[in-house]
């Protein structure tokens, strides 16, 4: 073999690095989508930036954990420490996100300047009724579910991976958290779009 060619081991190493760089750049770009909101000249920019940045971070972490969940449900090996830390962090992020979301949703409902809810209801009553009224409730669900998952992982530690019943329950919880987080992310993005439309109207 020629000395200048790349060995299989080097190729694997390069591909691994490229994967991580790509993931990192994608993550930074995704989060900057919301953190750049801090530059907008408007009065709800601080809750909006906190809620959307934490929300996207929550989606990234719960997306990772949601994919791990299926391996956990199938009974694959699990290393408890990173899983436990990530789940605990996820529960904390959910709590912050819900509080900042309340702050925003109240202004969606009753803020004196804009009355976005009234604007939406006037134009598409069903849209508000079926989707926007669903969002503040569905966005709350990941908090108790991820707290329960974190509780099980802290309570039983390494034994969680060795018990089929416990790993099944943890896997189900993490997959459900991912589902609810995705639903509220999509509805939240929609709400942002509608808010901009109502401001331009």
């Amino acid at each position, binding site marked *: 073999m020629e000395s200048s060619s790349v060995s299989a081991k080097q190729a694997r190493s390069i591909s691994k690095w490229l994967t991580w760089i790509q993931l990192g750049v994608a993550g930074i770009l995704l989060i900057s989508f919301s953190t750049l909101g801090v530059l907008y000249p408007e009065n709800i920019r601080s809750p909006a930036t906190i809620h959307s940045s934490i929300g996207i971070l929550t989606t990234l972490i719960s997306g990772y954990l949601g994919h791990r969940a299926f391996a956990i449900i199938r009974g694959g090996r699990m290393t408890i420490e990173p899983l436990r830390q990530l789940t605990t962090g996820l529960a904390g992020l959910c709590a912050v996100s819900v509080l900042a979301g309340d702050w925003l949703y109240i*202004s969606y409902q009753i803020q004196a300047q804009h009355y976005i809810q009234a604007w939406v209801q006037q134009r598409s009553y069903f849209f508000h009724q079926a989707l926007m009224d669903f969002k503040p409730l569905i966005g709350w669900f990941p908090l108790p579910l991820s707290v329960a998952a974190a509780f099980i992982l802290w309570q*039983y530690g390494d034994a969680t991976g060795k018990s089929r019943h416990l790993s099944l*329950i943890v896997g189900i919880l993490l997959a459900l958290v991912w589902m609810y987080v995705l639903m509220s992310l999509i509805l939240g993005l929609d709400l942002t779009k509608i808010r901009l439309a109502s401001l331009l109207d």
Partner: protein
Amino acid sequence: MNQQEAETDLLTPIPLGATAAAIVSAALGCLTLSTTYRTIAQSQLLSGKKIEIAVWPPYQSWVGSYPIHQLVGFSVWLGTWLLLYLAWRQRDVSLRPTIAVFFGLLFLATAMAWRPIGEPISHAIVQALAIR
């Protein structure tokens, strides 16, 4: 393998009591949250309440009846968790009924959160409790 063996945990048997308490109370908290939200929205008596708060959230001096359902849902979640934990922590409960109850409650919570389903049900609750 008979039914008895299939039901028992093959790897490490751990009593499921504390776990069941955690997940059932979480789902019950979700159900309480969405039911309370819908009921308050249906009841003019309750939704007319204006809660004055100066610190949270900023920019508003009153927030309508909005925080009530979260306070109720939060209290029911943590309250039932504590009670069920104290009652079940030494006991073993079966896996299947636990998961069935958990999914049932969570499904109801999601259905109540969706207004076209939740509104008629909460209307009936308001009528029954006479809090219109």
